[in-house]
Structure formats: C-alpha cells, structure tokens
C-alpha cells in the first residue's frame, strides 16, 4: 500500500504544489503580450520614428525637449486637466444628489433606478453622436427648447468658448449614473444599527452625517474619484466623436493630440512621447489614489 501511496502522492504533490501557477500561466502570458507593446511605446518615444519614412533612429530625449517647447502640448495639457476637473466635479456632485434622491423610497423606486443607470451602458461614441445631433446650432432641439423658455441658444460644440463645456456635458450624461449608482450602493451598504444608536442618542442629522456618514462613505467616494479621474485624463471617444479636438484645439486633449501626431502627421515617436507623459501622470495619480483607498478602507474597518 505504501509505495502506491508514495507514487500517487508524488504525482499528486507536483500537481498540488504547482496548481496555482498552472492555472495562472495563460493569463500571465497574455499580460506579457499586452506589456510588450507597452514597452515598445516607451522605447520608441526616444526615436524619431516616422510612419511614412519608416526611419526610427535613436534621438535620446529629443521628443521630450520638443514637447516642453511645443505650445500645442501645453494647451492640450491644460484642456485635459480642465476637462477632468470639470467633468469629475459635475458628475460627483450630481451623482451624490442622485443617490440621495434614489434612496428616498419614493413610489416606483426600482423603475427609476433602472432608468437612471442606462446612460452608463451607452457606447460613449453613440452618446456623443446623440448629443451632437441635439446640439446642432439651428436644427438642434436644445436651442429650440431654450428659446421656448426665453433663454438665448448657444453655439455648443461650434464655438471654442462653449465647446469644452459642451463636451463635459456629454461626458456627464454618460457618467453621472456611474457616480450615482456607486454612491447609492455605498449608502445601502452602510450598517443600520449605528444610525439607530445615533437616533436613540438624540444626535442631530447633520452631526451624524458629518461624523459618521462621510467617514464611512470615504472609500466609495475615493473609488469614484479614482475611476473618473483616470478615465477623464485618458479620454478620447466622446471628444473625438463630438469635436475631433476642435474648434481651434479648444477641446484638444493629450489623447486626441497624440492620435493626430501619429496618424495625420505620422510623427509616431513624438506621439509616443505625449502618451508616455500622460501615462506617467495617470500611473502616479492612480498609485496615490489606490493608497488613499486602502487607508480609507482600513480606517472604516478601524484597524
């Protein structure tokens, strides 16, 4: 019996020890597959790689130096940051109010919640096209409705002064439900008893809100900020579909600009430089925010 057991047990232990890695290998290979182009971008950002001429000789940090001196780059950076701050602030604000409204237990609440979540499931490009149709200066329905109410119509995507705001509005249409749904889930996951204790302790709603609800919701708030900031920084779909970065670079974010550099002006090396800078910003910010999230979670659980 024992040698059979040893035999079986030897084969068994190989399988038992390495099962974790065997299950894990395919995903690991695929991830390496994704990392390879990643590396390629970083390496090529140090060359003057050009799509048409096919040249790709090493020019050190040439692209980055050119970048610093290029006013277009600084404009794109400004636009990207303004877009992110505007969109995230608007979405988080309205999202919080929406979560409150959808948690009041009004009649038909389940229907409102289902309807409320639909926009986040729209393909962003489709949302951009929908709003582009509605924001048309003449035939657009928005101007018609504003005029009905006695307000002046707007150029919306057509003028460089209002284009960025319009694009933020479209982004908000799609992603307000993102923030709203997650805040709603956060509110619903709050433990019930501490609030009953606060009610019995005769504590005012504002005091409970400030001292109990906000700290408990902090992890959820950080999660929404993390996902929305990252998405907005690298955003391409809505802006490209709605304005292609125009008019006059008013909505030209870094992503869109790097697209143009590589395809319209075939300066791939320079385009990679843009992307590496954007990626660096994103990586640092996400690392910081994930750290904040871990701290907030441990604080809520009280370690």
């Amino acid at each position, binding site marked *: 019996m024992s040698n059979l057991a040893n035999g079986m047990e030897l084969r068994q232990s190989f399988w038992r020890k390495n099962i974790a890695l065997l299950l894990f290998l395919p995903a690991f290979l695929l991830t390496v597959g994704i990392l390879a182009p990643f590396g390629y971008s970083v390496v090529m950002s140090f060359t003057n790689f050009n799509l048409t001429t096919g040249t790709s000789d090493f020019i050190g940090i040439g692209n980055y130096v050119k970048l610093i001196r290029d006013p277009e780059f600084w404009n794109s950076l400004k636009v990207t940051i303004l877009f992110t701050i505007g969109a995230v602030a608007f979405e988080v604000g309205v999202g919080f109010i929406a979560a409150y409204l959808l948690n009041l237990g009004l009649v038909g609440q389940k229907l409102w919640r289902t309807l409320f979540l639909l926009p*986040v499931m729209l*393909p962003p490009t489709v949302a951009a096209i929908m709003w582009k149709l509605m924001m048309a200066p003449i035939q657009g329905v928005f101007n018609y409705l504003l005029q009905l109410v006695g307000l002046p119509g707007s150029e919306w995507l057509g003028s460089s002064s209002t284009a960025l705001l319009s694009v933020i509005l479209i982004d908000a249409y799609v992603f307000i439900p993102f923030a709203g749904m997650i805040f709603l*889930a956060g509110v619903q996951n709050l433990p019930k008893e501490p609030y009953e204790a606060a009610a019995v302790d005769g504590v005012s709603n504002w005091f409970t809100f400030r001292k109990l609800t906000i700290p408990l919701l902090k992890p959820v708030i950080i999660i929404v900020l993390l996902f929305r900031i990252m998405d907005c920084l690298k955003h391409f779909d809505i802006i490209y579909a709605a304005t292609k970065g125009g008019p006059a670079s008013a909505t030209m974010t870094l992503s869109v600009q790097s697209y143009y550099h590589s395809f319209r002006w075939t300066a791939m090396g320079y385009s990679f430089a843009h992307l590496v800078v954007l*990626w660096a910003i994103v990586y640092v910010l*996400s690392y910081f925010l994930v750290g904040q999230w871990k701290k907030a979670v441990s604080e809520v659980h009280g370690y």
Partner: protein
Amino acid sequence: MNRERFSVVKIVSIVGLILLMLWTAFPLYWVFNMSIQTPLDVISYPPKFVFDATLENYSVVLLGKAWLGKYETVQTDFPRYFLNSLIVCFGAVALSMLVGVPAAYSLARYRFRGKENFAFTLLSFRFAPGLIVILPLFVIFRRLGIYGTYHGMVLAYQLITLPFSVWLMRGFFEDIPMELEHAARIDGYSWWGIFRKVDLPLVAPGIAATAILSFIFAWNEFLFGYILSSDVTRPVTPSLMGFISYEQVLWGQMAAAAIITLLPSLILAIFIQRYLVRGLTFGAVKG
C-alpha cells in the same frame, strides 16, 4: 421635524427626481424620435415632436432598401459592421473568460509571490491611455500581417476584457467561503471534483454577469476598433464615425444607426443590473 418642513423637503426631492429622469430619458427619446422621422422632418425648424413616423431610415441602414419612388437597393455596410462587432466581442469575451477564470480562481485561492503586483499591473492597464498600446499594435500587426484581422482584434481587445474579467471573477470566487472546499475535500472529492461540483455552480451567476459585462464594454469600445480594424472588419461602434464625415445631411439614418448600436448594451445591462456596480468598480464596491 414638524409636518410642514417635512413636506417641503419631500416636494423638492420629487421635483429633483423628475428633473433627473428627464435629463436621463430625453436624449434617448429624442434620438429615437429622429430615427423615425423622414429626412425632411428631421432637419425642419422648429423640430417636430408630432409627426407621421417612418421606418425609412431603418430600412436603408439595415436592409439597404431606399424608397426613391420605388424600392431601390442602396449600398449599406451597417449589417456587416454589426456582425463584425458580434464576432470580435464574442471572441474577445470567450478568450478572456477561458484565460481569466482559472487565473482568478488561483488568485482567490492560492498564495504565491508576485500575486498582488500582477493584479495591480492588470488594474493599471485599465487606467492606461488606450493609444499607448494601440499605436504599437498598429505597427506590429502590420508587420505580422494580422492587421485588420478578426483574431488580431480579439487579441487587442484583451486589454479591455481581461483585466476586468480577472478582477471581477476573483471577487466572485472569494465570496465562496473556504470551509465549503474544506468540507468537500473531507467528503472525499479531488480538486477537479470540488471545482466542478462546488465552485462552478456557486460562481455560475458571476461568470454570466462577468461575460455579459465584458461583452458590453467590448461592444462600447471605439478606439481599438477604429484604429486596428480594416474597412472589412470594422466593428459597429467605430463605424458610426463614418456617418459624420461625408454624409452630413443623413441625420435620420445616423440616429437609426445610433439606436441599433446602443440597443444590445442597454438590453444586456438590464439583465445584469444587480452586478453592475460591482462590475463598474472591478469588484471594489459590492452592489
């Protein structure tokens, strides 16, 4: 809170809710409106809320039949784009589930070096700008001769579906208490028996939700499809850009194409509404 103050808050809330619902529903309603208006009505001013509807735009976009006095066949690529989307999305989801589910199980159940940094690397892909991977793929795929092919796109789409599948499935596996596996091992089941009889049945709804959510994200993707596909294999979402560039006037058809493109995402979303919050946050917030 006395009687009056309570009702004021209630009224303001109801008004707020109505505004929120209008903000959400009006765009969908309006674009649907445009999609069933005749080319004349669609560009008329003031915009028409009441009109005699027509399925003209859908017949042109979907069937390639236009009414010019009598039915003429008109060249339309939309059905092909729609099919491309189905092929690429099913392919991408299948691959990332095939590869992602076992990896998620091993992340949830076993301890090994480098586990957490692998998970974070996957997460960081989600946050990285898409172009930083797409542009190199554009160059590499052309060299490998798989540019614009379905399997090329299925591989590229892994950047969207794989990180998502692994993180979400890991959450679902971690929801199964370890005691259940211990109990099954004591009851005399091997690893495979436990995975088949205990883990899979319990995680089945999770697998379905992850697959559907991955499908929706792949379906909604624009950039990958726009750059890495040839005209033959272009998915439907990127194809919408075609409407904007040259046939500026055909708004009705563009609205119809938009409605058809968004329908699959919306319908599927309603099925997995329960898991949506969990999906959107990679499992960090349980809905």
